[in-house]
């Protein structure tokens, strides 16, 4: 039973029901056309902005879920490093290593470990990563990620695990794998972004739109009434 169903007919047999006339509807009908038009524009703008944010959000979501990959070749072995949740960023990062031999066959049952070390020469302005003395030389060892042993993934030749980067900047990620008792390694340079930077734009965007809608509604409420 919606309000449009509550018609006069239903109330004709009930005395004193003239009060049933929907006051808000009467008010709406008696609003000046100009004000109504203005309100419609505001409503349209609010929805437009919402739609825009939806698109931004979706684009962001799409970017987040696409993953980024880096490739290297060592002694005929093709090594691919994939950050499965998007670009590498500070905090926990899921990664996947794909190993293929010279015949492009997936390499099964390999022991794969990952270590990471911050690239001090490239880490400009990341004070916490390497304190410098007055001459600009590093006085501390760079940030390191302890060796992480990866587990076999869903597909053959796939190995998955998680590493945690504490700081943004350039990191050298060393992938070591042992095939037929022969250790081999490939080093990748990854640009680790500061987490949340882009997130905050989205969050502030949502807050801004909501505040704009609320402020607009507040400013026009008195007139509308």
């Amino acid at each position: 039973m919606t309000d449009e169903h509550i018609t006069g007919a239903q109330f004709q047999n009930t005395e004193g029901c003239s009060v049933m006339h929907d006051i808000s509807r009467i008010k709406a009908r008696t609003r000046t056309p100009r004000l109504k038009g203005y309100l419609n524009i505001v409503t349209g703008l609010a929805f437009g902005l919402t739609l825009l944010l939806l698109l931004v959000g979706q684009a962001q979501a799409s970017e987040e879920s696409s993953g980024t990959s880096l490739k290297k070749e060592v002694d005929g072995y093709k090594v691919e490093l994939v950050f499965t949740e998007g670009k590498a960023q500070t905090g926990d990062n899921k990664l996947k290593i794909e190993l293929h031999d010279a015949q492009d066959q997936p390499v099964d049952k390999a022991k794969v470990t990952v270590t990471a070390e911050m690239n001090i020469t490239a880490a400009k302005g990341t004070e916490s990563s390497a304190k410098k003395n007055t001459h600009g030389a590093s006085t501390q060892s760079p940030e390191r990620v302890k060796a992480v042993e990866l587990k076999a993934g869903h597909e053959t030749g796939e190995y998955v695990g998680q590493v945690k980067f504490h700081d943004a900047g350039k990191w050298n990620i060393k992938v070591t794998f042992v095939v037929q008792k022969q250790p081999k390694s490939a080093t990748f340079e990854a640009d680790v972004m500061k987490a949340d930077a882009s997130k905050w734009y989205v969050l502030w965007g949502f807050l801004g739109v909501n505040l704009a809608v609320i402020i607009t509604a507040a400013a026009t409420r008195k007139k509308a009434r």
Partner: protein
Amino acid sequence: MKDQSVAVSTAASGNLLKNKFIGWVFTSGWYPGFFQWLTVLVFLLIMYLLLLGPTSAHDNWGTALTWVLWWPLIPIIFVLAGRFWCNVCPFGKLNDVVQKLVGHNRPVPLFLKKYGIWIIDAVFIMITWGDHVFGMVESPWNSGVLMLMIATAVVATGVFWERRSWCRHLCFLGGLSSNYSQTGMLALRGTSEKCAECKVPYCYKGWEKVPGCPVFEYPRTMNSNAQCNFCGHCVKSCPNDSLTLKVRLPTSELWFVHKPQFAAAFLAAVIMGIVFLQNFTMLEAWKPMLSWLENAFNTDSFMVTFTVVFLITLPIPLALLAFTSFVAQKFNGDSLVKNFTRFGYAIIPLDVAGHIAHNLFHLLAEGKAVFLTGLAFFGKEVPDVSNALVDGATIQILQYALIALGVAGSLFTVYRISKSNYTGGKTWATVIPYAVLLILFGIVNIALFSLPMMMRL
């Protein structure tokens, strides 16, 4: 009218509002505000966790609370307590708050009243697609962004349109709950003798101390619980103590739908397609199938391959319902559309059963994640144990039992709908084709639940 009286008599128990405790709760000034603010607090915590917590769904307490606990429980709540969730939903409270502060309280536009249910259907389908393509559930951030989008839409509608226009005309979960709660065990109604004498429509319009019905229902003539969220405003406002809250047989409301809507029947068939799709994409066989599709379409885009599967799977139950209605019209003489609309409602019990059975897997196979990720949030050491609450075989038996119940409920609903609309041989001649369809849906569900599935976290 005879059927109506039967429907009323199926409300087997007495008026729950006469129970001292329940009556006190419904008339208390703290109800429903206390529960609403409670869910708002939990919602804020979840939003914080989703947007700023661990990036991996596996470690995020917000993901576990939302997709492993809340989402599986929600269809069960609809069966047990109708749309009570909508009453305490944090988005509904957000609507109420902004409306109170700056609301224009304009009437809901006619197009929303007329076509809102189609918007709900479309959004529901889009969100299901988006969940797979953009990974809503698997990514805490994406889940959080989805919530923010909903919150923004709620604010935008709440500030301009009166009452809970969003909940009634636009919320995709509201559309789902409107269908599901018709199988619900609780019914709130006015007492016809008292309402006939009533000269004040406070229950609908409210008065200075108590607001009117937030979802535009008029208890005096209300004959469905598709919209009522048990907020209790009408109970507080009624000067004649007319309202009753009774327990009824699950699905009984579906036996006598007075004005069946085509869009609601359409949604019922769509939900069946979504249940199939969700189960299908969780099968271990899904990945090889995806690889095959990638080769067949010469693309590595998941969006393309999934969209193909989506476009094939979703219309299947719709097409089958339309075909069955085409067969049934030969026997009962009503049009295809009329048959589709009337008997589409009979799918709802099986929808609910399929939905609960699907999510039961997440709840019982991954339920411990709610506690373990919670422990991690509070800095406690997390033991390396399985997330499962019970073993897979037990879950499967429960899923089969639920589907059997759903099929039984749907079959009985078909019979009752047919009986209340046709006489003599037409009754059974109409029941048989729909019974075949429902049993087919049941078999597909059982087949899907019998195959090994992947976890959500």
